């Protein structure tokens, strides 16, 4: 083929082939936003509602039933996760060219890693992290694992809204059986691209060891590991990471998942406690350290009361006899 067509002509052909056929639909193509392994994401205009939305469509030839079903399943799962931190799905179906698609809210913001470049304060970064934990915990509560949490999959909107994106690798878990385990692990369905038994999906550096090894027995602790890795990346530029925060990261990223936090709310609680200057579960501290932290937290009160007591004492000592 290369003997007959130039590279640029080939690129153009690929571009045309990837472009979804929106003829006769309520959508009009505006621009391409991104390209994944099996599909593309496009900015389209919803003519009926007169607004721009994001359209995700497979770029596989029509007739691949398995992929089509999985894209639809992905859309259904995201649609069920109604949470301010999860991009809402608006529509799903099949395009005139036979490709399955779904549309979702068009998020116009920055990727987390880009957003954080302008946020130097560690407390502000941790507050963003806590807002990432919310939708992930919500998804877990609905039996959905994300499996690809990383800064590139988090968007921060112009009004500071934090959205967890790209649930293409997400996985359904069986409902929890009581409280003895954080979540049961057997896979009852997969949402994202085909996952052969033992296939490794995710992003190196953010994947839990059990995910890296291709285990199918994943549970929410795999996402907790990824959140720990994200937390580590958030404070990577901090010269001296406080011990308690380092302990939280270590616990979230423990190689043995039994040593990790049992749930995302538990991890978030420790981070929130760290922010508030309260003790964290991951870092047992000595009594003197606890007392010092209490004094540090209440130093304004203590100084004011001390000033009052000293004044009173001085006045009593200096009173005329």
């Amino acid at each position, binding site marked *: 083929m290369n003997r007959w067509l130039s590279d640029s002509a080939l690129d153009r052909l690929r571009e045309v082939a990837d472009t979804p056929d929106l003829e006769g639909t309520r959508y009009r193509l505006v621009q391409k936003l991104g390209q994944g392994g099996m599909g593309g994401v496009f900015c389209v205009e919803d003519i009926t509602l007169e607004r721009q939305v994001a359209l995700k469509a497979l770029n596989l030839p029509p007739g691949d039933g398995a992929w089509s079903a999985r894209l639809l399943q992905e859309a259904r799962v995201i649609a069920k996760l109604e949470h301010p931190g999860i991009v809402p799905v608006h529509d799903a179906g099949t395009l005139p060219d036979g490709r399955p698609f779904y549309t979702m809210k068009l998020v116009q913001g920055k990727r987390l890693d880009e957003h954080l470049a302008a946020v130097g304060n560690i407390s502000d970064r941790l507050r963003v992290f806590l807002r990432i934990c919310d939708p992930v915990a919500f998804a877990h509560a609905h039996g959905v694992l994300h499996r690809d949490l990383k800064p590139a999959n988090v968007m921060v909107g112009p009004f500071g809204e934090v959205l967890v994106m790209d649930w293409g690798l997400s996985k359904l878990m069986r409902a929890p059986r009581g409280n003895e385990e954080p979540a049961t692990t057997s896979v009852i369905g997969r949402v994202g691209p085909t996952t052969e038994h033992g296939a490794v999906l995710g992003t190196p550096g953010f994947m839990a060891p059990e995910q890296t090894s291709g285990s199918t027995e994943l549970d929410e602790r795999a996402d907790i590991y990824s959140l720990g890795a994200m937390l580590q990346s958030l404070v990577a530029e901090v010269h001296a990471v406080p011990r308690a925060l380092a302990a939280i990261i270590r616990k979230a990223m423990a190689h043995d998942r039994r040593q990790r936090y049992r749930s995302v709310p538990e991890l978030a609680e420790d981070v929130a406690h760290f922010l508030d200057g309260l003790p964290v579960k991951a870092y047992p501290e000595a009594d003197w350290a606890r007392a010092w932290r209490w004094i540090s937290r209440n130093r*304004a*009160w203590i100084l*004011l*009361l001390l*000033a*009052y007591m000293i*004044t*009173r004492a001085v*006045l*009593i000592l200096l*009173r005329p006899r």
Partner: protein
Amino acid sequence: MNKALLGLILGGVLGIFDGLTAWFTPAVRSQMVGIVIGSTVKGLIAGVLTGYFARKVKSLPLGIVFGLGVGLLLAYAVAAMPDASGKHYYWEIMLPGGIVGVIIGYATQRFGQPAQTAAH
């Protein structure tokens, strides 16, 4: 707890404590009851005024300055009244009174529920 109530309680408690310290001044021990009552009322007034200010103005420095001003003003009003021998206790009353005002100003800005805006 709203800020005015917080100021009222804190002012009252500190006022009682402030009045009780008069016990260390033998010359005025005989007037302890009156001193404690007066000091408590002074604390309550300072507390409620500072708390009300905190409901309206959300600023730690301004809250502290307002508390200090109210504390000093009320303490001055008390100190301006001489004892039986005609002696005034400006320092003894105004210094702790000012600090109590600062404490209330700080507390009402940092803690307590702010005023709620009515929905329209």
